[in-house]
């Protein structure tokens, strides 16, 4: 091929070994050429699975279905990486068990004692508690509840689960995305069972989703104004408009315009916006990470 091939740059430290919490400051900080292997071909990873459960609160089951929307990917996850120990209809276990990762679907109804108790129990019994989907993270559509509905007219107080328990990690959107929950499951596996390098990668990957959980439990298309445009950070890429599941965001003269009556408060637009966060340490290694996840799912 014509042209010059620049000599391989001196191997920089892999992104994953960057100390956690220290943001990659410059795009040039990290150049990674090697792949992080998720599974060694020879060894059977089966022995070292993590346990995952899904606690179903006030949600529509769309989040649970999303997990299944990984199709054969779900079987692969369950074969090699995770045992599903608790989930509506999928697992015949009545009582909240001990688990490594608990995905909580739905907001918590304060008028329903069992929901509150089960949520607290899930917190107590899991290592990582995930607000899985817009309702658990931000209340989402249940923010608009005002009671008086058949067949529990007395139930009207619904809150994001972080009002009741501490939450480690957010997966926003309504419904969430099958590939995102898959990525989080693989990363959780690497975090809990992986070697040093894999742990570092998983930590770097999961950090922004953990920071989202710290950021608060109110979401709205308005976040694009408050935290992106008002902050002088929007560059008009259109991701927010492409993301919104209810098409509440349109691009007018290069900036998002939110139809606030349509917005269901799922939090997807802000989380997906490259100017909510952009962690160069992970993104610069996109090829390696995508290959690794793909490899893990084969």
């Amino acid at each position, binding site marked *: 091929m014509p042209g010059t091939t620049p000599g391989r740059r001196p191997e920089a430290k892999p992104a994953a070994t960057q100390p956690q919490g220290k943001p990659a400051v410059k795009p040039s900080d990290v150049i990674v050429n090697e792949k992080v292997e998720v599974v060694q071909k020879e060894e059977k990873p089966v022995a070292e699975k993590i346990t995952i459960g899904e606690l179903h609160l006030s949600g529509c089951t769309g989040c649970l279905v999303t997990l299944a929307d990984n199709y054969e990917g779900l079987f692969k996850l369950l074969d090699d990486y995770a045992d599903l120990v608790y989930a509506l209809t999928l697992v015949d276990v009545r009582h909240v068990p001990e688990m490594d990762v608990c995905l909580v679907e739905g907001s918590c109804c304060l008028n329903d004692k069992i929901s509150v108790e089960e949520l607290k129990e899930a917190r107590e019994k899991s290592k990582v508690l995930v607000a899985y989907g817009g309702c658990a993270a931000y209340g989402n559509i249940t923010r608009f509840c005002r009671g008086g509905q058949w067949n529990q007219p007395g139930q009207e107080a619904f809150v994001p689960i972080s009002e009741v328990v501490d939450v480690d990690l957010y997966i926003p959107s309504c419904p969430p995305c099958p590939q995102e929950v898959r990525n989080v499951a693989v990363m959780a596996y690497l975090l809990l069972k992986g070697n040093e390098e894999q742990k570092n990668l998983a930590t770097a990957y999961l950090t922004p989703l953990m920071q989202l959980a710290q950021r608060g439990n109110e979401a709205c298309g308005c976040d694009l104004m408050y935290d992106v445009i008002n902050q002088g950070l929007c560059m008009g*890429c259109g991701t927010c408009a*492409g993301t919104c599941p209810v098409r509440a965001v349109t691009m007018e003269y290069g900036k998002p315009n939110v139809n606030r009556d349509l917005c269901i408060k799922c939090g997807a637009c802000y989380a*997906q916006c490259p100017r909510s966060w952009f962690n160069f340490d992970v993104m610069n290694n996109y090829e390696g990470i995508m290959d690794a996840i793909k490899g893990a799912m084969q």
Partner: protein
Amino acid sequence: MDVLGNYKSAISARSTDKDILKKSQDGGIITTLFAYALEEGIIDGAIVAGPGDEPWKPEPMVVTTKAELLASAGTRYTISPNLSLIKEATRSYGLDRVGIVGTPCQIQAVRKAQLYPIGMRDVDDKIALALGIFCMENLSYQALEAIVEDHCNQKMESIKKMDIGKGKFTVYTERGAVSQMPLKLIHKYVQPGCNVCLDYVANLADISSGSVGSPDGWSTVFVRSTKGNAVWDGAIAAGCFETKPIDQVKPGLDLVTKLATEKITKNQKNVDARKTVGLKADGTPKGLRNPYESP
């Protein structure tokens, strides 16, 4: 400091397709690569900056033919929110292999959508070719209007081509007039989001291209990813491009490196300055949000 990102090769190139060169901004790299990828079935369609409802206002568009590609060739120096169609392309348009062109920030958005597909169901493995164009800064449509109509004193609808180069913003009218303004004066019109941008040459694209570094009518090309490499090799084998080694053209990579360093240094300063913009009651500085640290 590695401001040019990871790449497998850097080349100076120009399309061999005369129809494309008539419409394209520089060496027609983007349009030619998409045309080749469509032909070969590498992509089923591409998201580009199509014609909009006002002169020089782009509208993101999913295109599936060479004719449509030609109609959307050339640079519009204003925002084209191409990412707004990325999920739509796989859904309403039913594409399994999506091509997309974008500025460095838009390519960053593509990679975030793939690595963290929070609201991007079934998109991650359908991005077949992400082409980046170099970018120093971008303008709102109203800012572009001010530049063309107030500073260059030409009507938007009479402009045939706009170009940035050699320190000048230049417009060429249909009737042959040429008006210019110094690039320095553009700064106040740049959209604020560009002032914290830390990428000049689309480091995360499969292939990225721009005019800087190569002679007029030619483009500088960085072939970056494994995928990009395969597409580039195929396009070369198919005779899509004339090429020259980058170290044999003037001004070459030195200029690209210089501009990239200038942009990133300046904007990194802006990012840092945001940390101490305000003042707390105890006399210590109060900062604005930093997207490179946390959401």
